């Protein structure tokens, strides 16, 4: 009887532990464990730029709201846009847009199972970097 009670208690404790562990699972991409290979850095950067661009999308809606509110409110944005800090921010934004765009095209190809050979993955990665820098420079020369 005593043995059975102990056994039930132990089973209960184990199931509670397993239940708690199910909420406390290790992170799926194991960022802190794996060696930082280039492909992983590209993937992490894609997600990081994605988060930044989501904030950018919200800023874009703030911009359109300011236009709707009228010239008095829009002048707030115009005053801000003369700052050099704002220009640097826009420059980084452009770079982020192009990186995420070109890298995203790579992801679309991968979704169809194309261009997945390791050598092509590396080569297209370098193409993404070069293209995004060139496009950003091109945009800022055109302004």
């Amino acid at each position, binding site marked *: 009887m005593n043995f059975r009670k102990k056994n039930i208690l132990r089973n209960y404790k184990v199931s509670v532990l397993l239940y708690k562990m199910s*909420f406390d699972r290790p*992170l799926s991409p194991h960022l802190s464990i794996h060696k930082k290979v280039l492909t992983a850095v590209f993937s992490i950067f894609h997600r990081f730029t994605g988060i930044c661009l989501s904030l950018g999308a*919200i800023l874009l809606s703030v911009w*359109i*709201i300011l*236009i709707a509110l009228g*010239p008095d409110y829009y002048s707030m944005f115009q005053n801000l846009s003369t700052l050099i800090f704002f220009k640097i921010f826009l420059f980084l934004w452009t770079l982020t847009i192009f990186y995420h*765009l070109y890298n995203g095209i790579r992801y679309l190809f991968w979704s169809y199972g194309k261009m997945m050979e390791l050598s092509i993955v590396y080569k297209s990665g370098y193409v993404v970097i070069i293209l995004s820098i060139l496009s950003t420079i091109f945009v800022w020369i055109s302004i």
Partner: protein
Amino acid sequence: MKNYASKWIMQRLTAVILIPLTFWFVYQCVLLSSYDYTQIKAFFYSKINASLFFILIIAMLYHAKLGNETIVEDYVTSHNLKKTTKSIISALTYLSMILTTISLLYIISS
């Protein structure tokens, strides 16, 4: 596990929509950077510009929502925190969508 396949497809679909629209908008931004308030407002009077901008911002916000949710699912282990973050993402997305639509309609009608 509810319709992750459709989310995956929508993520790709919005991405495909966003590729040409992003190039278009960056090009327009280069032009818009030298415009004053009335000229920028006039930009949205054009039906093509207003509709393209509308599709761009809605697709962008939805793409961002799906992407951020995927990131949250991958990195946030606590069940409650996951739920909270996802609701914040949804709230911000839908709020931005609604306010942008109202603003655009207001600009066009004024």
